[in-house]
């Protein structure tokens, strides 16, 4: 039935357009003798003015987006040591983009307006100018050289892992559709692991080698806790398909690839509690809770359950398409003081103790 209706609507739209065109053509025939469907001076004028209108539209949508949604982006308030480096580079790039965009769009649309065609006028025969072309080759070269150099420095400093800083080694383990974390324990060395050692019956879900002495003090958890100010080195594994460990607040992301171990390292700089106190997050949370309150009222009117109020937490999201529940593959991250962390980790079961004894 719906299909039939949709087809009918489409047919009516076609007929409507047909009739409108006919009416329009009839009104035109009186005015002008030419009707060859090639733009005339009148078309050039109207579309020339519309070009200016469109330029204003582009500027307007830019301004609206920045004013209305400009505070959403993750360009400030990062929670890791390398974060401000990325944010600065992002802001520099955005300024360059904004500048070039504003000027080139102006020239393009302004010229389209200014030089709109008129009968009898002849265009300037201007085919080449090496000087001009050299200028707009060299300027991008200089600007890009700057961006490339700063980009490479930032990238190298993020990706080169400083082993001297004695980072805490943590494994992030991905599977359809959840995350686990394995702490390396007092020895700061992860026990060997392979999916071939997985034994669900004994609750060895990560395939950790029980015989490896390094594995004895490993701790497997479903919520990631990190002490603030301490470098952490993530070793990432996946047991089934590609996943990507995305931790936006820390400006961190790395794919988890079956068959290999990938890594990413950063130092958290703000505890969850501190982050909740920052002005940006408080605004954001207040805004989100207003939205949720409105939505709850709608839901309750329908007799459904209200939404819980939102409280800020760091998150680890899956950011590589991984199957049906990709959209809900997440893990909470808690950044806390060293004392809080020590207290928390003490509560967790060691890997050897978590195994089901035969």
């Amino acid at each position, binding site marked *: 039935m*719906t299909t039939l209706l*949709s087809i009918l609507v489409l047919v009516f*739209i076609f007929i409507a*357009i*047909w009739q409108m065109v006919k009416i*329009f053509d009839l009104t035109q025939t009186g005015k002008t003798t030419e009707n*060859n469907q090639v733009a005339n001076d009148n*078309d050039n004028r109207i579309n020339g003015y519309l070009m200016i209108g469109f330029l204003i539209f*582009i500027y307007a949508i830019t301004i609206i*987006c920045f004013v209305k*949604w400009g505070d*959403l982006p*993750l360009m400030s308030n990062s929670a890791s040591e390398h974060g401000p*480096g990325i944010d600065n*580079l*992002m802001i520099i*790039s955005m300024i360059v*983009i904004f500048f070039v*965009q504003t000027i*080139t769009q102006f020239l*393009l649309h302004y010229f389209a307006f200014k*030089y709109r*065609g008129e009968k009898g*006028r*002849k*265009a300037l*025969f*201007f*085919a*080449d100018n090496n000087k001009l*072309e050299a200028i*707009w*080759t060299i300027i991008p070269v200089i600007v890009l050289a700057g*961006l490339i150099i700063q*980009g*490479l420095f*930032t*990238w*190298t400093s993020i990706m*080169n892992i400083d082993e001297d800083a004695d980072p805490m080694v943590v494994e992030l383990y991905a599977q359809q559709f959840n995350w686990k974390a394995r702490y390396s324990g007092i020895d700061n060395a992860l026990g060997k692991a392979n999916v*071939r050692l*997985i034994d669900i019956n004994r609750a060895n879900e990560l*395939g950790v080698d029980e015989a490896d002495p390094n594995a004895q003090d490993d701790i497997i958890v479903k919520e990631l806790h990190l002490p603030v100010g301490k470098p952490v080195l993530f070793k990432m594994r996946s047991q*089934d*398909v590609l996943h990507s460990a995305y931790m936006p607040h820390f400006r*961190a*992301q*790395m794919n988890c*690839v079956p*068959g290999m171990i990938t890594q990413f390292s950063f130092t958290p700089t703000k505890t969850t509690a501190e982050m909740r106190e920052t002005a940006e997050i408080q605004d*954001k949370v207040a805004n*989100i809770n207003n939205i*949720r309150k409105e939505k709850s009222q709608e839901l309750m009117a329908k007799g459904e359950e209200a939404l819980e109020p*939102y409280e800020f937490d760091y*998150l680890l999201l899956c950011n590589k*398409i991984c199957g*049906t529940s*990709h*959209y809900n593959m*997440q893990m909470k991250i808690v950044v806390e003081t060293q004392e809080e962390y020590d207290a928390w980790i003490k509560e967790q079961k060691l890997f050897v103790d978590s195994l089901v004894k035969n």
Partner: protein
Amino acid sequence: MSAHVEEHGHDDHGHHHKETFITKYIFSQDHKMIAKQYLITGLIMGIIGVAMSIMMRIQIAWPEEANPMFEALLGKWAPDGVMSADIYLALVTIHGTIMVFFVLTAGLSGTFSNLLIPLQIGARDMASGFLNMVSYWLFFLSSVIMISSFFVEAGPAAAGWTIYPPLSALPMAQGGSGLGMTLWLVSMAIFIASSLLGSLNYVVTVINLRTKGMSMTRLPLTIWAFFVTAIIGVVSFPVLLSAALLLIMDRSFGTSFFLSDIFIQGEVLHYQGGSPVLFEHLFWFLGHPEVYIVLLPALGITSEIIATNSRKPIFGYRAMVASILAIAFLSTIVWGHHMFISGMNPFLGSVFTFTTLLIAIPSAVKAFNYITTLWKGNLQMNPAMLFSIGLVSTFITGGLTGIILGDSALDINVHDTYFVVAHFHLVMGISALYGFFAGVYHWFPKMFGRMMNKNLGYVHFWITAVCAYGVFFPMHFIGMAGLPRRYYTNTNFPLFDDLASVNVVITMFAIIGSIFQVVFLYNFFASIFYGKKAEQNPWRSNTLEWTTPVEHVHGNWPGAIPQVHRWAYDYSKPGHVEDFVPQNIPLKEGEEELQH
């Protein structure tokens, strides 16, 4: 070779082939008919692809709400009108595949390369009419197979258009990785064969069949673009074919090219030693040049249309050709920027950042040259011209954000977010689509002997232009806020609740923009039959296709093939009364050909 063909062509004209309906309209070897076949097939695939994107947008804006349209179109995939997560991923996958390959590669390049290469270089037909026909029918077959995957039990491929294994390799990883993925791979293998036959034909034709006087430096920029595009295709498509074949081996014959150490659904699989990262390298070795396979023909079309309608020579012809070549070369050595965080060596990331950002230089040259071509022109605002100006606008807007994504350090945080979606839709999706529309409006009289209605063209352009920005400009911001792409719904993350309203705005623009494409479809199909009869050279253009008669003839020119005496851009040349001088007009006494 050339002389032989000329003679043969002449012969053809002398005693007309007896043509049946089948040889004329179906198994035609005439490049003009094949171009039309590509165009119509591309349009149909485009309608399907856009309809899919609208369904996705509705789901994102109003997640998990019942919609009668879903029930009607998706059937069992939308029980009670609520779209399932599996079919959402399938729509993501097939939308991407259809738009990139079937619409913007075959629909755009297939249509205009076929139509324009012989006509603009002065040839009777393609080098091989037969291969050209085979190329189209392979494309048709692959289209049918791709669409048919919607009718298999477990649904079509749903691993994203990049079909990264292991997700795409293991039927137990998701429903779409069963028969649906097999059909995807078969369809793409056939598509690649079609594309290679087409590309080889284009390359050979441009090299061998140019008419007398048509030196490479007198080629219209359209032909340069098609020629270079075909070369990139020949270089990179075979790599995707090998990736697809190896994936088929892994799926069906137990090899381990891309798979290793997998535990899924409670069992360990035997695969060992393979690497999904290898697949990513192979895929993007085509995948990135593919962006330019899509974009370059659109830029070529735009160059031609902007020059014609500005009544001015294209500014910096040599720089334009050089930048096409530079883009083509660089496009084959930047694929790693899709893989900064794939786990490959970070040093490679540095190298690919460097090569990637270099592409901005020839791109900037092109953009500035377009703008300078407009300067002091006498702009004829035909619909094709509007779409060409629109292309330059979206090419700049979309291209600029490439500076962020190409920078490995910045990519860490926006990789696979909506920022990427906004970027590539503007820079290659919308831009190439504008190139496609511009080409259709401009060469419609050549294809069908009739004119499209200009006022409908204006309505079509302005609404499309506003909606395109309305959709993709705000999308950058939700991407920068960290929203991952390919999420069926964002409601599981209260963190993103404040982005829901932006998504509604985007969807509204998308719906309006796509509904108004009906104006174009109406204009297109109605004009084929009822359009105003076209003059021989309605846009007063210089290129050779406008010297052929309006009524199509086999061999293109009823008499001898015209000779070429000048480049294609003698518009408003001083010393001539008219503001255009077609390429086949000999130089006047004392007139110098521009040292372009």
